Structures are given as C-alpha cells and as structure tokens.
C-alpha cells in the first residue's frame, strides 16, 4: 500500500488476570475509510478501543498513527494524536448547553466568553460541512439521544480529530436516527476522516463499512472487504460455527385473552407520568412485542405487570384482577397468579449475583412447597433440580454451586429463563431477552420463547432491538412517551413505519428521516428558547 494507514496496530495483547482480552491483534485501517470491528460481547472489541484511547495500557504491541509509532498513555495523548471517541454511554454534562459541552476541557484561557464565541463559529462551520445539525443553546437534557450523539461527534471534531471511533453507536437510536448517523459517517469519510465502527450488528457492518475485522475470543479471526462478504459468513466467523440468522416459527394460533390491561397510568417518584393510559391484550399462544426506544415506558409497564411498581388502572390475568398498589402488588402475588417474569436487567433484578446458580434457580419461588418444608429450604433437592435445569437449558459451565456472577451474560439469562419457563406460567413477561447475550445463545433463547408460545402460553416481549421484536412477535405494539402509538402485524409493516411510530410520528411522510429530525429540532429549539430567556437574565 502506498499511503500509510491512518491507524495500524501491531501485535497488541492485553490480559486481565487469567483472561486474555486481546491476543496479538494486528489491524491496518486505511485513511478515509470506515472500518468495522464486529464481534460478540466479550470478544475484546471494547478493550482494544480502550487501549487505542489510552484507558488501558497494552501488555505488548505497537500503535502507529499515520505511519508514526505513537504511545498513547492517556486520553490526552489520544486526542493529541487526532483520535476522537464516541462512547456507547455519552459523556455529556446534562445541565450544560450543547455549546458548553463541546468546549468542555478544550477551553482557551481562563475566560469562557471568547471560547464560547469561537466554538459557536466553528460549530456552525462543522455543522454545515458535515450536516451535523445541533441546537447550540439547547441543554443536553432537553435534546434527543440522536442529537446528543451528534454533539459527541462534534466534540471530537472540535478537537481536530481525524480518526473517529464509535462504540456501538446505534444501541440507543431509532432506525431513522441510525440512518441519519450513517449518512453523517459517510459524509465524514468522504471528507477524508477515518472511522472505526464497533458493533455487534451485522446489518450495520454491511450497510456502511468499507472493511471489516471480525473478533472472536480476543483475536482477529478475519479482516475482509465488506463488499466481498455477507452477513452469513460474518456471523459464522464471529461465532465459529454456522448460525441460523432467521427465527423459524409456525404461525400463531391465538386463543383466549390471558392478559388484559386497561387505562394503565404510572407516575414516578419525580411526579413524571411514565405511562399515560395503556390498553393492551395478550392472548394464549401469541407473542406480543413491545417496540420502542429505551425510556418510553416499556420498562415501567413490565415492572407494573411484574409487581415491582405501583400503578393505577386495571390489569387482569385470566380474568382475575391483579392488585396494582399496596398488599398483593408484589412479585410473590404475581407469581401466584401465574405470571412469570424475565426482567430487563438480569444482573440487578433477575439474579442475586452473589448467590449460586442453584440458589438463583428458585429466586422468587423460594416460598413454594417444592422448595422446602416449613421454615427450612430443601437445599439438596433444589440443587439437584437446578443441575437438571441447567442440563436442559444448556447452561455452561454446568456447575450449580458456581455463583451467578461467574457465568457469562448468555448463561445468566438461561438461568433466569429456565427458572421462569419451567414454572409453566400462563403469562410470561420477557424484557430484553438477548441483551448482552452472544449469538449462539440468542438462537437458543428465541427457540425457548417460541416453544413456550406453542405450548399455549401468552408472552409479552419488550426489546430495544427492533430486529428481535420483528422476528419473534406475532403482534407488535409500539410505545412512545408512555403511550401505545399503534399496533402492527409483523408481516404487514416494516422498519421504517415502526421507526416512525417509535419516534412518535404517525402516518408515512415521504422522507422519514427528515420528519424525525424536524420533530426533534422543533422540540430542542423550544427548550432552548425557554432556557435562553431564563439564562439571558443571569448573564446580563
């Protein structure tokens, strides 16, 4: 190659104790390209990028930036070398404006005013050049995640970055917002920036990258031109075996109504209305999927149904009213009413991480007659039963005495699923069933959920992965801002329509992305004006 690569890694290795997170990694990223790095959770992608950004020090190996060997002991050095990072979880100050966030840490001199004025000019120029539209005076807490992400990108560009690393950038975006992001990335590339995109989503790799490196268990197993590969090949490289990408299921045969939700309202501790009148039905033998961007009330709905949060309204299961406040509005009563619950956050809710697998195998059911006699728990019996469950659900390692924290995300999820499914609930609530779960386990988990449906159970699924909702659901309800925007059948809708509903827009405007952006900007502008007047007084 005649041009020096923008970034070259040679033989990077990094261990954490006995775990080798990165093993002899070598990558060359050509300037002006988008280079994807794909791999399952725990494959070592984030470790590698943390080394590149100076958060970790590699045990061995060298980094070359534009042909020059460069040491990156900290993030200051990374910025000096022209590397900008957009993290999965944004690092923005919520009650600062966009402009203030952009200059934070890059102010010139002690006075803020000149910096702000300069930043405002540069921001306008950058926004024009790369179509990175932001509202400079809006507070971060008032703008949508899509714009927050653009602020992060602008922060990097403002610091003269010409190599941008994005870590799982679409996790929090609607499909339309993701499309918009990809257009920005393409534009940045065309202007000569180099981009490294870390993701576990095959579709994104195929859509936007020029080259892709696949990581598995800390190693780069292949680097290929994106145009010369396909999702099946990439998936196989990631997992190390053939993977079924599509969910295979027979058509649903819905029966009687199991879950009936009427006019459900939830007001949280801050007085914010999180659910604004939900009506929903789930029948026997069907999977109803709740789609939506995180934070639009899906979690609250699951928590109410699981007995973890008080609400007003009416909920019946098999025609019997569930208590929504006070006594009887808890997980114990829900289980007695035949409601199983795979919670969204298995590590904080579904499992006690310090408990062994067998102790977790009865968590929530520890008062059942099957779990013991009288005051005592039947530890030996529970452990034997847990070992059998782990066998049936292929939990690895198959050690019931091991504490939950020592299992991988996928195996933790299998422990929760095994517990909830094998109780044979009439209604199963499933939150983010495959978040942080590797591809191999995803197949298995999906198959279990479908098997439960085929056994005539009602299933309510919440997932931020639209692909998952579309693949599993027999009916899709889209939530936005505490309401159900609409219900669709998976065969009769597509991502664009669902994406619009997720953004709170009904109908089908010609240019979907533009409509979304317009709606957001109007919202941010509105907020900015409110704050502008309030702040104006303070500054004057």
């Amino acid at each position: 190659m005649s041009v020096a690569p923008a970034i070259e890694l040679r033989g990077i290795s990094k261990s954490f104790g006995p775990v080798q997170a990165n093993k002899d990694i070598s990558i060359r990223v050509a300037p002006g390209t988008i280079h994807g790095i794909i791999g399952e959770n725990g494959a070592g992608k984030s470790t590698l990028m943390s080394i590149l950004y100076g958060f970790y020090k590699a045990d061995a190996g060298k980094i070359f930036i534009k042909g020059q060997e460069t040491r990156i002991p900290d993030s200051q050095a990374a910025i000096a070398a022209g590397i900008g990072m957009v993290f999965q979880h944004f690092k923005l100050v919520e009650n600062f404006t966009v402009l203030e966030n952009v200059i934070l840490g890059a102010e010139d001199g002690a006075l803020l005013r000149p910096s702000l004025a300069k930043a405002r000019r540069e921001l306008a120029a950058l926004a024009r050049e790369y179509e990175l539209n932001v509202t400079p005076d809006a507070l971060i807490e008032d703008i949508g995640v899509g714009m927050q992400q653009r602020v992060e990108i602008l922060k990097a560009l403002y610091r003269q970055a010409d190599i941008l690393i994005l870590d799982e950038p679409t996790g929090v975006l609607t499909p339309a917002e993701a499309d918009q992001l990809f257009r920005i990335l393409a534009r940045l590339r065309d202007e000569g920036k180099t981009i490294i995109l870390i993701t576990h989503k095959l579709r994104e790799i195929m859509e936007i990258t020029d080259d892709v490196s696949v990581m598995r268990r800390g190693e780069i197993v292949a680097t290929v031109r994106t145009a010369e590969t396909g999702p099946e090949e990439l998936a196989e490289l990631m997992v190390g075996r053939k993977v079924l990408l599509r969910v295979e299921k027979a058509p649903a045969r819905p029966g009687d109504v199991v879950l009936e939700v009427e006019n459900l309202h939830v007001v949280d501790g801050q007085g914010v209305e999180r659910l604004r009148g939900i009506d929903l039905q789930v029948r026997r033998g069907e999977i109803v999927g709740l789609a939506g961007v995180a934070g639009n009330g899906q979690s609250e709905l699951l928590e109410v149904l699981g007995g973890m949060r008080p609400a007003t309204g009416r909920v019946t299961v098999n025609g019997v009213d569930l208590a929504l406040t006070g006594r009887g509005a808890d997980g114990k009563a829900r289980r007695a009413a035949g409601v199983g619950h795979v919670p969204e956050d298995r590590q904080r809710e579904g499992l006690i991480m310090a408990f062994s697998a067998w102790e977790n195998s009865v968590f929530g059911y520890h008062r059942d007659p099957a779990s013991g006699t009288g005051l005592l728990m039947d530890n030996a019996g529970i452990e034997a039963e847990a070992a059998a469950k782990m066998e049936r659900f292929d939990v690895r390692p198959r050690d019931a005495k091991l504490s939950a924290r020592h299992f991988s995300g996928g195996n933790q999820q299998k422990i929760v699923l095994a517990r909830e499914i094998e109780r044979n609930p009439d209604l199963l609530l499933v939150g983010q069933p495959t978040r942080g779960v590797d591809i191999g386990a995803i197949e298995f988990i999906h198959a279990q959920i479908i098997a439960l449906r085929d056994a005539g159970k009602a299933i309510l699924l919440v997932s931020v992965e639209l692909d998952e909702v579309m693949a599993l659901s027999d009916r899709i309800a889209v939530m936005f801002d505490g309401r159900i925007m609409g219900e669709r059948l998976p065969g009769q809708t597509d991502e664009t329509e669902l994406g619009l509903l997720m953004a709170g827009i009904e109908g089908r405007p010609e240019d979907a992305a533009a409509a979304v952006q317009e709606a957001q900007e109007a919202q941010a502008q509105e907020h900015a004006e409110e704050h502008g007047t309030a702040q104006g007084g303070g500054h004057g």
Partner: protein
Amino acid sequence: MDRLPGWADAVLVPLVSLLLAALLSALVILAIGESPVEAVRIMVVGAFGSTYGWGYTLYYATTFMFTGLAFAVASHAGMFNIGAEGQAMLGGLGVALVCLALPWPHWTLALPAAMAGGAVFGALWALIPAWLQATRGSHIVITTIMFNLIAAALLNYLLGGVLRPAGSVEPATARFPEGATLPTLHDMLAPLGISFSRAAPVNISLFVAVLACLFVWLLIWRTRLGYEIRALGYSQTASRYAGIGPVKIVVVAMLISGGLAGLMAVNVVMGEAERLLLNPTEGAGFIGIAVALMGRNHPLGVFLAAILFGFLYQGGGELGLWTSIPRELIVVIQALVILFTGALDNMVRMPMERAYGALRRRRKA
C-alpha cells in the same frame, strides 16, 4: 481481578491482617522500651496458661460471640447495626427484671426466662431503628448510635432511682436471688472430675453462645427466611423483583440481631455480676462489629474471632498487671487488631489477590 480461593479468603487474609497488627504492636512496644517477645509471652500465658486464664478468655469470648452474631445477622440483611451496645444494655435490663421478679428456685428455670427477657428487650430496642429505616429511610447507623446513648441514659436513670434498693448508694440493682445463679465452668466440670478455676467467671452462657452460633448458621443458610435476608442484603432491586418485602425482612433481621445482642447480658449480668450495674456492656457491642467483620459474618468465623478477642482482652489485662506497659497502650493494641482485621481488610486482600494472580500466570506460563 483474580479472586482468591475460598480458604485463602476466609483464613489467610485475616491471619495476615493479624500478623500485621501484631508487627505494628511490637514496634510500639519496642518504642516504649519494653520487650515485645516478653509481652507476647505474658499475654499467651495469661490467657491460656491456666484454667483461670482460659476462664476469663472464654468469658469474654462468650460476650463477643453474642454481639458478633448480632452484627452478622443484621449485616446479612444489609444493615450496619452499630447499636448492639444499646441493645445489650436493654438486654441487661430485661435479664435483671426477670431475675428480680421471682424468687427463682433453680437456675434451670431462671436461665430460659432470663434469656427470653434479655432477647425480647434487646430486640425491642432494635425495633424502633429498624422500623424507621424500613419505612422512613432513616439511616440505621445514625439511629442505632443514638439509641446507644438513649440506652445508657435510661439505665443511668433507672439504676439511680427506681431499681436501686432502698438504702443503697450504689447505682445498681439488688443482688439476684440465689436460684438465679448460673453454674460456672468450675461447677459444671467438677462432677466430671476435671478441676477448673473457681474464680473464673466463664459460665453456662458459653454453651448458649455456641448454640446461638449454630442457630444463626441454620437461620442464614438453611431457612427460607435466611435466604430472604441474604437476598435483600445483596440486592434491594432484585428482592423487589422476587416479591421479598423489604420492610418485613429489615424488621425481622433487626429483631433477631437485637435479640442476640440482648442475650449477651445473660453472660455478663446474670453469669458474672449477678446484678445490673451501670455500663454492663463495656464496649462489647462495638467489639462485636470487629468480631463479625473478621469472622466474615459466618458463625464459625465469629466463634473463632470471639476467642481471639477474648484472648486479647484477657492477655491485655495481664500485660497491664505484670509490665509497665500502660493500660492505654493495651487499648492501642486491641485497636490495631480491630483496625487491621476490620477496617483495612482490602489493604491486605488486594495485594494478596494480585500476588495470587501473578503466581497463577507464572505457573501457567
């Protein structure tokens, strides 16, 4: 971070902490011109060299077992019960009231009644902070500390007035009736032909304490209630998911904790003093925290740590008798042990984990 194997975590870490505390103590003793070797000899002989020494060591250990268990049970529920001191004082009041209430014919009747009295009073003293924590979020550390002070003031008031026998000028209750005298180890071993110091205060409460260790083990690891206590202690959120009522568990765990602290008075008030004096606990409630921390909140660990602290108390007392090492320095030594085994746990654990990880890597390579 590499995790140490279980045995190293439970045995090696406290031992190394103890060694460090001993080392530092030796330096302090050297600094004031005394011989550390001689000091250790005096402590060991004083605590374990005679049945008299053993008798005192075990007597202190009995007390620390109760307060250690009290802290451990609350700890499993995620509560930092710093109020064993006050709960034990109230336990003392309960024991005294029971013992003085009837002309007890025999200790076999008096002991269960006094145990109930001590446990109930201790438990009730823990109830209010527990209730405030569970329903109002008032922090249990703050409330239990305040309840320690209230307990001391209450005892002060009662012993100065209502409970003081007419004509006495001492702030103490009347002596308990003859039938409420607990058999000492001397009394119990004599029929077996084993001679044990008559002067040592160790009594049948020691066996009550051992039974309490067993009870706590059973409770925490074998019952549904113990399962819920541990679950709540590890994660409030997950417990809400599982339908475990936090109010109930916090209150029940604190009742048990306070009850165990109250039982300590059976040893001190009924077994030794045979009347209720001012400050019957003498800081044993706080020592219980160190005992539980060192014992990893496990009853076996509490049992062993209690004996260690019994040794420190008895040996330390002997040191004061036979050397010119001042009394304050003995407190310093005891404090060093508490500091290293309780508070500075991670200072020892983390380097050990690192060393262990390095060792493993080298072995693999």
